[in-house]
């Protein structure tokens, strides 16, 4: 590629990044606007952050949202990890593929369908719509991603580790806790992170299965945005953006261990291919 083309490519990438980040920085910029709207910047102020700090209802919702994400990710990780083990140790490729396809149904379903069908499900069972129904839904749609994060680690594990543990007299549960779980931990952590963000990100499912008593941030913003603009929301987005940055950086460092190993095995298999040629 010659220099001129390279420069055009970089310009194009630069434009895409500007497009991707402009709305986010727009929100952040106007959170400091004394003018009270997102139309013209009239002066610097922190009053919306102060208003946010005094808005106990909104802060309560933020706490609830994070609590929900924390709990649902935790439960989904436990169930999903054992689910991945179940799929991995199922005999027969065909059976495994059937289980995996069923696992992926909720991954590909539109969230409106998940929300509507869960709403019918809770109504049929007579479960009232509150924190519990939202929590159950979030656990339910987070399980498949945990399974997908843990499965590759199980595949990487050397099966003779389990034979060795059994020869040394370990019981089944000891094998699980002392051999399998420690080995797949990077996958479990990645799964937890993904489940956490799925929960934080969700709007549609929560919108369907939540009742009057419980609200998450996304649902609250939806109802506030319909009434127009309030810069408190901007202040909140700024804080959430910073939080996401921290999460992403944390995730990046954790997944580094994962990818470098994957990279290594990829390089190794390439080397083997070259050797055989």
């Amino acid at each position, binding site marked *: *590629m010659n220099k001129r083309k390279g420069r055009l*490519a970089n310009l*194009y*990438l630069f434009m*895409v*990044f500007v*497009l*991707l980040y402009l*709305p*986010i920085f*727009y*929100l952040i910029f106007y959170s400091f606007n004394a003018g009270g*709207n*997102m*139309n*013209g910047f009239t002066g610097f102020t922190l009053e919306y952050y102060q208003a946010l700090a005094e808005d106990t209802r909104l802060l309560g919702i933020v706490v609830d949202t994070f609590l929900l994400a924390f709990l649902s990710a935790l439960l989904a990780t436990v*169930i999903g990890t*054992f*689910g991945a*083990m*179940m799929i991995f*140790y199922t005999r027969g490729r065909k059976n495994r593929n059937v289980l995996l396809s*069923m*696992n992926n*149904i*909720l991954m*590909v*379903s*539109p*969230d*409106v*369908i998940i929300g*509507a*069908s*869960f*709403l*019918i*499900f809770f109504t049929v069972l007579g479960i009232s719509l509150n924190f519990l129904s939202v929590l159950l839904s979030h656990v*339910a749609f987070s*399980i498949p991603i945990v399974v997908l994060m843990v499965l590759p680690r199980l595949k990487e594990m050397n099966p003779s580790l389990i034979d060795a543990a059994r020869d040394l007299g370990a019981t089944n*549960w000891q094998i*699980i806790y002392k051999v399998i779980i420690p080995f797949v931990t990077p996958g479990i952590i990645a799964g937890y992170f993904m489940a956490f*963000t799925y929960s*934080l990100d969700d*709007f*549609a499912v929560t919108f*369907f299965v939540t009742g009057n008593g419980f609200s998450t*941030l996304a649902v609250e*913003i*939806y109802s506030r*945005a*319909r009434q127009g*603009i309030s810069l408190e929301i901007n202040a909140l*987005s700024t804080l*959430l953006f910073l939080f*996401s940055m921290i*999460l*992403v950086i944390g995730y*990046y460092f954790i997944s580094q261990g994962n990818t470098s190993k994957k990279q290594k095995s990829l390089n190794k298999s390439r080397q083997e291919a*070259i050797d055989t040629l």
Partner: protein
Amino acid sequence: MTKTKTMYSIPYILWLLLFVVAPVLLIVYQSFTDIDGAFTVGNYGKYFTSSTALRMTFNSLLYAGIITAAVLLISYPTAYFLSRTVHKQLWLMLIILPTWINLLLKAYAFIGIFSVNGTINNFLEFAGIGRQQILFTDTSFIFVAAYIEIPFMILPIFNALEEMNPSLISASRDLGANTWQTFQRVILPLSMNGVRSGVQAVFIPSLSLFMLTRLIGGNRVITLGKAIEQHFMVTQNWGMGSTIGVILILSMVAIMLLTGEKKRRKGGNRA
């Protein structure tokens, strides 16, 4: 091991039965009930004879198609150029980062940008064109939906391009192909799998978006998702809502079959 396996499998199997199998069966069952809960096929009859419902479905598919095409047009070059940069992983992280910001917050930002007194209109007035109605138009809906979906298209295409063996490009050059021929005959066909999964990842959610139709589209565009939400949350006609839900599921399956990975010959191209 079998007994232990049964023990630890119980929660996962319960999840499969209660939250995967049961909801699908329930939504299909519900689609055959009328507003009082009695069995009927009337919902389907009403759906297939109502011109508004059919037009709504067609429009929803059309808009999803436009959104997907726009996203693909922007994302393919992005993924292609990204796969040729030096710090790929870092740039990729920067593409993913906006997806961690809640969808509603991004929609909210666009309400500010597009509003009558918003930034774009200020610019238009400054440029002498004058203020336009931007928010609550079809264009703004397509723009914001495309904006939200872009990262989900870039990722699979980028991965497909990364998986490609770079020596194939050198080989094509050595055999006398120019840049365009190499792209057309080698790079594009080999990245089609990424494009297919990208199209799936964008088209299906575009059919079901419902908060954007309200906040950005001003309910001018009715997607399948919006219709379902209306029937469930506003008119309380769950039977009809479920019927449209089943239609949405069927269109999803159709899209997946259409864009599904073609059976590839094993051990073909890669060394």
